[in-house]
Each structure stands twice: as structure tokens, then as C-alpha cells.
């Protein structure tokens, strides 16, 4: 069952969530971001989805970087955040062709070296939703979500289970739940 979403502010907020998760998937956290999360409104908003950011200090940054590495970078038994790996068991599957077609339509700021990186896909989604919030839907968000975002729910679930820090456990779980929610929005399973 699809949830009705026609409120432009909803679209913007969803775009923001994609932006947040994009940032978390693409890179390790830096001190600056951890400090941002300590701001009351951020802390609040995060707490509501049961995410508790650690103290902003270099030790936290290091611990999170190690956890990020073991989840998404490797070197072994990790959870490759690439759609091709998830769907065809190798890097650079045919899904990359499709992803490139979308990147031709949506120009992103991030340029991770691998184009079907979930973080990049989230950024595309963020941009598209913002666009739709102002100009209405042309089916782009729907198409992109089905083709390149819905797969991430399972990946994020696994990534969350692999995480050793409470932060990544909860925040990745929240991302998985968010994508689950988005699936309802787009009426896809």
C-alpha cells in the first residue's frame, strides 16, 4: 500500500534524510560532523530514531573510522555497499550502465570511484526529491528508487548487524528502516 506523499516539505525532509545517509555511507565521520550531532536539535532528532552519537573527540572519530572500514571498506568479510555486488556478485555489473544513465540526468557533487555505491545513489535520490518538491513528480524518483535504491534495505540491515559501534548499529538500522518506509511510499516491495 502506497503512502500518500504530496507535501513538498515531506519531500524535502526525505531528501534531507537521503543526504544524511549518503554522507554516512560515503565517508568516515569527522570531528565536525560529530560536533554537529551534539547540537541539541540534532541530538534530539537522532534520539527519536534511537541513534546516539558519541562524544565528539578524536578517539570517537578513530573508533568510528575503524568500524566504518570493517563494515564498508574491508579488507575482508565486509559488506560491499555496491549494488552490483549485491545483485550479481561482482563489481561493475550491468547495473552500472543504468546508473550512468541516471547520472547523466542527475549531476551529483560526490564522485565516489565506484558508481553504484549506495551513498551516491542516496545523493541522487536527495537531489531528485528536492527537485520534485518544487516542480512536481515526473516519475524520476520512482524509477530511480526501484532501480537503484530499494536494494539497499537488505544491505543496510546486514551492515548494521556487522557494526561493532552502537552508533553504526543504530544509524544503519535506521537507514534500513527508512528505506523500508520508502518502499511503501513507492509502492514497491
Amino acid at each position: 500500500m502506497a503512502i500518500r506523499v504530496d507535501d513538498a516539505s515531506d519531500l524535502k525532509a526525505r531528501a534531507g534524510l537521503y543526504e544524511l545517509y549518503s554522507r554516512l555511507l560515503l565517508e568516515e565521520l569527522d570531528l565536525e560532523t560529530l560536533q554537529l550531532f551534539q547540537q541539541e536539535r540534532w541530538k534530539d532528532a537522532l534520539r527519536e530514531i534511537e541513534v546516539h552519537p558519541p562524544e565528539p573527540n578524536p578517539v570517537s572519530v578513530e573508533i568510528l573510522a575503524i568500524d566504518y572500514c570493517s563494515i564498508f571498506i574491508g579488507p575482508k568479510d565486509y559488506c560491499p555497499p555496491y549494488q552490483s555486488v549485491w545483485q550479481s556478485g561482482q563489481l561493475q555489473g550491468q547495473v552500472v550502465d543504468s546508473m550512468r544513465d541516471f547520472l547523466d540526468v542527475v549531476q551529483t557533487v560526490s564522485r565516489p570511484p565506484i558508481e553504484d555505491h549506495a551513498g551516491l545513489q542516496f545523493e541522487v535520490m536527495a537531489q531528485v526529491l528536492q527537485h520534485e518538491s518544487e516542480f512536481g513528480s515526473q516519475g524520476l524518483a520512482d524509477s530511480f528508487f526501484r532501480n537503484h535504491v530499494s536494494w539497499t534495505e537488505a544491505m543496510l540491515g546486514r551492515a548494521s548487524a556487522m557494526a561493532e559501534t552502537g552508533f553504526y548499529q543504530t544509524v544503519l538500522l535506521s537507514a534500513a528502516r527508512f528505506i523500508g518506509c520508502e518502499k511503501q511510499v513507492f509502492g514497491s516491495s
Partner: protein
Amino acid sequence: MSDSSRRKFLKLGALSLGAFGLSGCSRNTKPNGAEKNGSEKAAVQESSQDGELPFGVDIEKWKKGRGKPYEIGGQKMPGVCELPGPEAKRNWPPRDKYKDAKKVPGMCQLCSTICGIIGYVKDGRVIKVEGNPNDPNSRGKLCARGQASLNHLYHPERLLYPMKRVGQRGEGKWKRISWDEALTEIAGKLKAIRDRGEHEEFAFHQGRQRSKDAIKRFLDAFGTKTQLSHRSLCSGNRRAANLAYLWESDWDLNDCENSKYILNFGSNAFEAHQGHIPFANRIQNGRFQNGAKMVTFDVRLSNTAGNSDEWFSPFPGTDGAVALGMCHWILDQEKYDREFMETWTNVSIEELKEHLNPHTPEWAEKVSGIAAGDIKRIALEFAAAAPAATTMCNRGSSAHLNGFYNDRAIHLLNALVGSVGKKGGWCWSPWGGLDPVVKTPKMPSSAKTWSVLEDPPEYPLANVWRRMRVGEIIYLYLLQGRAKLQAYMTYNLDSPLTWPEESLTKDVLTNEELINFHVCINCFYNETAHYADIVLPWTTFLERWDLDARASYNLRPYVGIRTPMVEPLGESRDIRDFFPELARKIGGGMEEAYDYGSTEDYMKYWAQNVPENPETGKSGLNRLLDEGAWENQDNQPFYEPYNVELSAEELEGAEIDDQGIITREGIGIGIRLGDRSVRGFKTPSRKFEIRSLFVNQVSQNEDCSEMIRKSGVTKTKNRPEQHKGHEVDVDEMPIWLQMEEHENLADNELIMTSFKWNVHNHGRTMNLKWLAEIVHSNPAWMNPATAEKFGLADGDWIELTSYHSKMLEKTSPNLTHGVRDDSGRVVVSKMRVPIVTMPGIHPSAIAMSNSCGHWQYTRVAKAEKSSSENGHLVGSDGETYRDADWERNMWWEDLSNGDPAKWKQNTGNGWNQNRLMPIAPDPVTGQQAFHSTVVKIEKVG
């Protein structure tokens, strides 16, 4: 999701929008991610201002192309049955797969044979790799390994980013770092070593490398000669045996395509061998187009042995005795080539008869178990087919403690029948690599340091003609404090798996006192990377530049090219790409070795002498990029080079000594034969040296400068001081040496032999799923009669106890370490494995392959579907995880949990045979004796 939790999400989302500089509204702020290139960024901003591309979305473009590329599912077709399901193949095989695909040449590097390849590239991806028919050596053929290139390039667990160790070394904890951070840290360490003048304490350790120039440039610019290799684990004895006869080449190239008789001692060219596919193809042509017969002597029935016309299984390490028995018989029956022997060798028939007098076929039968009648018959068949008759040999005969002599004895057969250098005979070429017509930009001058790791004094023939090095001793020598390493850079190396004494290798690699700083350059996280401090993601051979070639079976040189077929994946980089940057960071003049411009400039310069193809008008690099390889077909095959007459120009100012040796300025250039002045062999006697005074004198640390001058091979080392105190008595003549440990084997002892599969390449291919599917495990081969004796049947488990060499205990006591058990032998290690009874193995031998038993190197190599630490089952969720292969279909996962009773045949990732191998260098050359080890067998359970 409930409405309230949805609202919570939206609240966070509202905060996040624009907070990270990723989405459209903050486009004008500094991007948090990687920088776009300037022009694109400008374009985005400009159109943003126009309002044409708000949020970076070109909705008009989307509307135009919409539905076309993204449509999933297909049209419905009428039919008598239910329609194909949602995952139906539809367009399969894709009719247009190769339409508009670009062909890019390259060279395989999944083994050392480096066959020419073509990558079919479409939409920036390599969709298929095939052989390149223009490659003169490999002729467009490609084996299973090369065909699995796609697994290598697009492996889901490839290293994509530099990483730095954060826990204890070997603990497996890492964090990602940038290339700049990585290179800065490495440069800091290297600069300090350089500043202290301790250059030799930076070692570069290669597994297999095909970028010789790039490595040499870096190490020479740095100033270290401590370049470690695996040559002694591979081919040291065969090379030395060749050099003793020829001096100018360490590599016999058997001209099998033109042969009538191929006599193979322990070479498995159909599955392994440095010449592998090019060689195997020519052998089959020789047999099935030229009518050659092929006879193989090998302890184990390899595919080469199994496909030969006859197979004989000698007792391990007795190949040389069989060969001497044949030589004896050829002499006895007067079937030798008198003219060749008298003209071109440095012993007389009488001398040789006397030398071989004890080595009768009957003696050889006693030693080897091969019937004297067969030895005689084959000897005469071989002689009758000459000169189109050749021996071939490789690690089966040479990776023994008597391997140098085995190969000396085998090669002698060719001299006796006069097939040396003849068409269809036993040939060689002086071109072990690229056609010398191509030249790199100027190289820095050679480093002058010395390290015991690279040049141990104990092995007289290891580094005398050329640097073969003795790789297997390095970890032991480090442990013994004979050297230390402040920085250790490993490259395409998997030493814990491929070096003998696995546990010692691991101990030393873990020890930060012995190896201060370890940088690992590799495509995958392997067992070596596990013990590194920094791991650098290397490009695959489909993503980097090289000019490359190997000793060609066409007996003339060629030039091949490796070129990036696609952009390097992730942040992987080749040494050609980052060595210049590293050198600049180290500074101190190192950067001067890199003033040639870009890598492409370098390649252009290097390839510039490749002449124009009149048909295409292309030359140099462009020609190579077009064709993939170039061979100068005006060069005649290197037949009978010794018979080539010297020109008047060459003879100008030459002198002739009383032995007829022609010298110019004291340097040998040829020999006088009757009224002819010919080139001869490039040995001190200018003849094929059946008697090598040189090997004996070098081993006794005597001055050999005169001999070296006469050979003309002046880069040969004369340095008696270097080996002082390490005299070894190397026999001048081809002999056979009885290994002490093989005498009087106890009833429960066998000799372990190892082998390579046709789908694997030591420690480098078990991560490739299409290969691992075919071979992933390695139960020990045992003769059915032997198994019966031990009360064993197929699939039963045994405990193997391996022993150090008795012979080396005496000759090289520094190598032996461990505890002596009641057998009187010193134990190396123990391991439990299942056995498979095979009719094709000597009853006194037990065979286990290498390449198996990884404990790192991706889940495919480990045959593990899921991460054991987290207990999370990857691929178990069939609905969301659609990959049909990678893990879900890995049907060979071992579910026994280490319980032999539950182990199922053809499952698991096998066992590392090198766990059992002692460090065992042949005292003559340092060749690791992989096939001489005595093991004790005990039934488990």
C-alpha cells in the same frame, strides 16, 4: 512504519537537508565529497543560475530518454504454457553483446606465461577476455585461468582503497586512509632509512612481477639492491644446469613442434610450466601433426604424463639416474652423434664412456625402479629420432636436493644425440624477455648495496651468472638475526602460503622487531597483506601499462603490451603511477629518475622503435595498441647459433689462442674450427660444457676471471671472497647424487611431492570462483597398494609428519631447527588431510597440490559463505539477495566444521601443503627442494 516514526524520520531529514553539501540547494558551497573536475562543476553552477538544472536534475533529458534504458521486465508472449517467470532470461545470449564492443589488447598475468589477450570493452566494462591471435608465442590461446580474468577484475572483494593497520600486526584491524596519507607515511620511513645510509634495510619482495623496469628504477633510485624474489622456489636448478652448459641462456626452449621425439622428465607443461600454453600447443602439434612420440617420466601422473604416449614413474629424485642410464646405453650402442660430440663438446667420447661406466641401465633400474629394458629402448628411440629429438624438464626433476645434477644429466642426452640447437631439438634463445630493440627512458645507475637476504654466501651458483637469489631462506635469516629490515615492501606476494614453513613465515611477518614496517601492494587481501602495516590497492593486469614478453618458442624475440582496458577500479593504482609520487616525496635526488613525463610518455618512448606496419601505417606505441604484439619475423629462429661464422668485421684485431679460442681485447668471441671462425658456445671453452670446470672452481671459491673473459659473458661474477668459508664441492661432470634421506625409508614413511593444477597458480587464483569451482581442495594422492598397506581407503584421513633433510643437516646445519623424533629425523610440522587413492602415483610417494588452504584471500578462496565472526548469513535471504553465484551457489563449502568424519569429498578449500615443507635449498644453487621431503603417515581414527 507507523506514522509517528515516519514523522521522526522527517524531522531528522529536515535538519539534514543541505547540511552535508551534497544535495542541490547547497551546490554552491564547497563540496564535501571528491572534487569534480573544474569544467563540469562550472557548468553545473552556470546552469543552476539559469534555473535550468535546479538541484542538478536535468528533467528534460529524463523525459526524453525515459523508460528506455530503465524499463525492467519484458513483453508478454502468447504460448500454450504459463509464461516465463519474472527473472526470465529473455534476450539471452544478448544478440548484440559484441556489437560496438572495443577490442583492447593486453597480456594475461594470472600465471607467468603472460599470454596475449584481448579485452572486449563495452560501456566502460570488460565483457570478455580472449586470447590475442597476434601474440606470436601464445597464438590466441587462453587457458582457464586467463578466461577467469573477469573474476579477477570484478571480484566483489577486491581491495579498492589504501588501508592502515590500527590493531596489533596480524590482528586484522584497519582503517581507510587516503593515498596521500599512505604515500606520505611510507616516504617518511623510507627517507629516514636513506638518510641514515642504511639503504639495504629496505627490501622489495616480489611474488611475480612483470614491471621489471619500474621496480628496478625505483630501487636503484632509492639505492637498495635488496630485491627479493621467488626464483629459487621456482626454477633455480634448471636455470643453473642450463647456464653451466650454455652460459648465454638459463632457459632451454624445446622445439617440440618440429620434434619427432619428446622425452619429458617431470615437466607438467599441459598444466603448469613457465611456457605453459604456448609450449603445450606446440607439443601437441609436434605429436599430432609431426608424428612425434612423447614419453614422460614423472612421480605422479600429471595431465602431461596422462596424455603422453608412455608414462613411467621413477622413484622421486631419480630422473637424473634414468637419464644417465640412457646416456650410458646410447654410448654403449654407439648411437651418439659423433660429429657433434667431438666438435662441440669439451669431453671426448672415451672420457664420457669412462665417466658413465658405472651408470648402466641396470644401475639406473636399481636406483629408479624403471626397468632397464625400458631405459634402453627409450634411449635408442630417442637417439634414432635425433636431431629432431629433445628432452624437457622442469620442477619435477629440478626441485630436489640433487636437482642441479638431475637437470645436468637430462640435458646431456641432447648433446649425445646431437640435438642441441637443432630444429626439433633442444634449443634456447638469448632473449628471455623483450626484443632488445625497445629501450626504456634512461635508467638510474644500479644500486651498490649488499644484503645477505639477497645474496647469501652459501649458494655458489645462485648469483653467479645472473641473480637468481635464494628466496626461501629470507625469513629464517631474519629470525636468526643475519639481517634486519626497517622497511619491507611486498608486491604480488603470498609468502605465508607459497613459502616453505608456513608457521615460521607467519611468525617473522608478525614480528615488528624483525620487520619494522611492512607495505603490501596487492589486488586482494591475502595472507601477506594480513601482516602488513599499510595495504595499497593494486591495479589488476587489465588496468595497467607494461611492455612485456618472455622467452618465445618461436626462438626469436617479440614485444607485447599490457594496457589499461578500463580505468582502474576504485582507488587502485599501479606502481608506475605512484612510484614517481613516492619518489618525489622521499626526494633527495630520487625524483630525478622520474623526469620522463607521464606513464603514457614513458610507454611511447619505450615502444618507439617498434617499426611501422605498412598496412596500417602505425608504429611504436600506436602499433602495439592496435595489434597487441609485434615480432620481427626477419629474425631467423635461433637454431645452431654456435655454427654462425664470425664476420670479417668481428674478427678485426682478434687473436686466437692454442685452443682455437678467438678473443678480442681478451674477451672471447668465437672459436676456430678447421678453417672456419665461428661463434661457438658462450662458455670458457666456446663449447657445450659437459665438463664445467667453472662450477667446480666457483664452488671452491677459486678465481675464475680468465674463464669469464673467454666466455665473453662478462657480467658473470668472479668473487671468491664472497663465498669464503662456504665451499661446496660441485662436480664438474653430470652425475647423480643419492639423497641420504631417501635411503632406507621406514615402512611408515613416504616422499612428498607437490604439484600445480591446470586451473590454479600457486597463491593467486583460488579467489576466482570459476576456477575454485573446478578445483578447491587437495586431498593427498596415494597409490592404492600403499593405501592398502596403511589400511587406508578413499576419503580416510591421515596425519602427516614432515621432516627436515638429513643431507642438509650436514651440509647446511644452520637451516635445521626443531625437535628430533624417534625416527631420528627432525620434525617440521604435522597436518591432517584425507587421502584419495590414485593409480597414477609412485607407491613411495604422496602428492599434495599447492594453491589450496587459504585462510585469507576472499571468501571464495576460503570456501566460506559467511562471516564467521558475526554469525550473519550472507546470501541466505533469497528474496532480497539475488546474487546467484558469489556465495549462495558456492556448492563446495565445507560444512564439517573440521570433523573428519563429517567431511564430504570435493568440499572445502583444502590444505596448505607448504605448512609441511622445510626450508630446503639445494646447496649448489639454493633451489628449494619442494619434492624431496620425507613424511610419516599415520591413520587418523
